[in-house]
């Protein structure tokens, strides 16, 4: 619980309208996209790094947790107040300060919605490639903290690859700048930028980001390719990569997912197929035409049933709306989604897909798979009902098997959603005890009192979620 004096001090720092301790606000800041409920003791909306610094110093003396929060769309509970404390919402810091068309860089505040930055960049003929499927409603700060990726990672990489430098408020209150602002290179001192990216709000609060942009590709084509089996589709992905074509996106969608989003399907008759690939290529006009032709040939060799190229913006949008609706729609299958995002080397994609099908039938659970096949990253959703204890247990067992399979195929248990609380108990499957100790050492050095986003990443017991 937060002391009354601490509340007053917090309110004094940010001003009356920017700190809330009322029941309504606490409820609204108690969840994220994991859909579990941990009411915090307060919510604060700082106006800049100085205020954040003062709040963190206060937290150190008073001993309350501070949890940075962007849009609350995280899939692993990073923004949840699992140990109580104050939610530090960055929603007010939403300025795009500069887009520098001469240096191809952007200077943004953490609360900027990723899609808004992309739209602004595009208006100037530039391109910010990282595209988590949540891009219309997640923030740059959250993307940096989770090192978000997306369909375009196959060609363009992930958030990490576009962060040149950061302004960060350290857990103990110091405001520092890491990396560079406008240069593509910079090796002075340790690479704190990379340390911060993906640190899930446990090592510092990002208050400004200096990002790299690219020129906007001249042309683009979006294709939808239907297959009679998931293996065929996965095989086609491997074949495309083998042929050294690099699409900007190859997304795979299995039959369970297709059934959930059929209503979005203004295109084609998806009803009879078992798997779909969504492929996008970009670049020069002549280049994309050539790529489409090559992909069409490979797909038909690999047993594609239909091959369909979107004509125009509206059809492209329809396809993407369908794709973006998958994850939230899965609740139609079963209420509880154990949502994993494993990655394997692309040459092992078929191994992963068939392995998952085996696990599903062995454990007797429904598994819905879709995702960024082009970079080997599959969103594996074990669908259960948390009120059915036996099914829930089978689901948890299936998750463990999936992780073992992934690691045996040379992969990693989380590609982009992070660890948070959802995967904390599994990190020992991938990381050695020594590696985890090094990480704990870093956390301890930067946050000696453990006030910044405690209970995340490292396995630890904390309170049970509330249910409304």
């Amino acid at each position, binding site marked *: 619980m937060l002391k009354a004096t601490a509340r007053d001090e917090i309110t004094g720092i940010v001003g009356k309208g920017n700190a809330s301790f*009322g*029941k*309504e*606000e606490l*409820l*609204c*800041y108690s*969840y*994220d*996209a*994991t*859909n579990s409920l941990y009411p915090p003791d307060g919510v604060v*909306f700082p106006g800049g790094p100085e205020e954040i610094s003062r709040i963190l110093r206060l937290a150190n003396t008073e001993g309350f947790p501070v949890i940075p929060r962007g*849009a*609350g*769309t995280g899939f692993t509970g990073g923004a949840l107040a699992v140990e109580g404390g104050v939610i530090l*919402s960055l*929603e*007010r810091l*939403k300025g795009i300060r500069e887009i520098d068309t001469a240096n191809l860089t952007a200077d943004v505040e953490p*609360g900027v*919605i990723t*899609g808004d930055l992309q739209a602004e960049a595009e208006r100037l003929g530039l391109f910010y490639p990282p595209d988590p499927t*949540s891009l*219309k*409603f*997640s923030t740059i700060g959250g993307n940096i903290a989770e090192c978000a990726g997306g369909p375009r990672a196959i060609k363009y990489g992930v958030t990490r690859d576009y962060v040149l430098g950061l302004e960060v408020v350290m857990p103990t209150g110091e405001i520092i700048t890491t990396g560079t602002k406008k240069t593509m290179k910079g090796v002075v001192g340790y690479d704190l930028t990379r340390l911060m990216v993906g640190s899930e709000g446990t090592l510092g609060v990002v208050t400004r980001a200096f990002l790299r942009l690219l020129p906007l590709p001249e042309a683009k084509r979006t294709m939808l390719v239907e297959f009679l089996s998931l293996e065929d589709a996965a095989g086609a992905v491997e074949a495309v990569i083998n042929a050294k074509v690099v699409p900007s996106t190859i997304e795979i969608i299995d039959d369970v997912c297709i059934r959930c*989003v059929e209503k979005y399907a203004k295109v084609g008759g998806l009803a009879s197929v078992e798997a779909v690939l969504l492929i996008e290529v970009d670049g020069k006009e002549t280049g994309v035409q050539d790529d489409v032709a090559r992909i069409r040939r490979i797909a038909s060799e690999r047993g594609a049933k239909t091959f369909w190229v979107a004509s125009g913006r509206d059809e492209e949008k329809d396809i993407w709306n369908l794709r*973006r*609706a998958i*994850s*939230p*729609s899965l*609740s*139609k299958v079963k*209420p509880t*989604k154990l949502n994993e995002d494993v990655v394997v080397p692309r040459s092992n994609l078929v191994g992963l897909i068939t392995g998952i099908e085996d696990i599903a039938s062995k454990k007797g659970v429904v598994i819905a798979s879709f995702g960024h096949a082009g970079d080997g990253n599959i969103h594996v959703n074990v669908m259960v009902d948390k009120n059915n204890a036996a099914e829930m247990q089978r689901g948890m067992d299936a998750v463990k098997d999936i992780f073992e399979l992934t690691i045996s195929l040379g992969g990693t248990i989380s590609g982009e959603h992070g660890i948070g609380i959802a995967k904390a108990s599994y990190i020992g499957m991938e990381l050695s005890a020594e590696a985890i100790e090094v990480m704990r050492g870093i956390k301890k050095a930067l946050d000696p009192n453990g006030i910044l986003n405690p209970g995340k990443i490292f396995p630890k017991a904390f309170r049970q979620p509330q249910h*409304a």
Partner: protein
Amino acid sequence: MRGIKELIEEAGRCVRCGACKSVCPTYDVLRREQSGPRGRLSLVEASFKGESGFGGAYLKNIKECTLCGSCHSNCPNGVNIPELILAARAEGVEKGGLSLAESFAYRGLLHSERFMQAALRLASRLQGLFLKGTAFENGLVSRFSLPVIGGGRLLPELADEFFLDRSHIEELSPSATPVRGKKGGVLRVGFFAGCGVNYLLPDIGEATIRVLKESGAEVVVPQQVCCGMPAYSAGDRRTARDLALKNLEAFEASGVDIITTSCATCGHGLKKVFAELLSDEGLQMRSRVERFASMVRDITELLTGELPYKGGEKGKKGGVVTYHDPCHLRRYQGISEEPRRLLSKSVFTFKGMKHPCRCCGLGGGVGFANYELSMEIAKEKASSVRATGADVVATACPGCMVQLKDALYQSGVKARVAHVVELL
């Protein structure tokens, strides 16, 4: 309206993904979780499940929703958040949570149309006292804060003579080759004016009647009252239900083939809400309401459907027109192409605006409950209009028109606001 149990069950389909925030006009402006659909849903769901201890912030948050419906159309799981909010408002009214100003307006004014008319007639004569004219737009700016209305906003002048008081509108024959109705006689269209047209923008009513006649219909304007939507959106279902019944009886007695309105909000009310409000009152009532609802057409729907508008003189000499989609027309009635098609038959050159279906900010009572928020939302609309460089912004809802006039005035955008029928 569906029962609380069913609504809670539906709310349970929400997985808290947050997609709805990206299309919510109030979240966009306020940037607080509780000011967006996901937060509002969480609050109402918890309250309906028996969570206690919610106070003023709860009511404020549910009152701040414009009910534009974007969250519902954008929800991957089809959760109808506006309906949940309406249910919460209705509950708030039952428990006496509706504020004084609103109950005065909805209960007192609307419920007794005679009182409403007398009050507004008086106001129409006295308006100079409260309101000062502007040279810029047709309208008046309130000199100081009025209870329901708030200060500083641009209000359309109350009409000198209210539309429904005009004697020439009672029964009108077609002015062109008559169109036949189903029963063989001349197609008889009943016009539902609505308060916006009656008290504020009677020119729309005149234009509607003119176009209907020119298209070959016989027009009747039965004695009618407010459609009840302002009361309904505020959660005052009792008032809304009484008004619905009066209107139902009035139009049944008029023997029309089709009922039309040039107000998107009234149209949604007549088509769907009347049935909802009266559906518990026996089978006979249900079939009466259903029959009534099946006769209702938005004016743009009618003029592109049973009573096709032929288009007048040719040539595009009217300047550039853009179009704003009223929420109650596009999302609640699924009408978006029809008004655009009509505009393409006018003398104006059509140019689309960015985000045409984003809410203007007036709806759901937000224009009354929180004028500042409502105007903040409208600013974006004003800048979309500015970017088109249009001479005229057309829309199909008097409510949106009042809001757009105000917003354009506040943002210094010099485009005229008109109803689609006024441009035909």
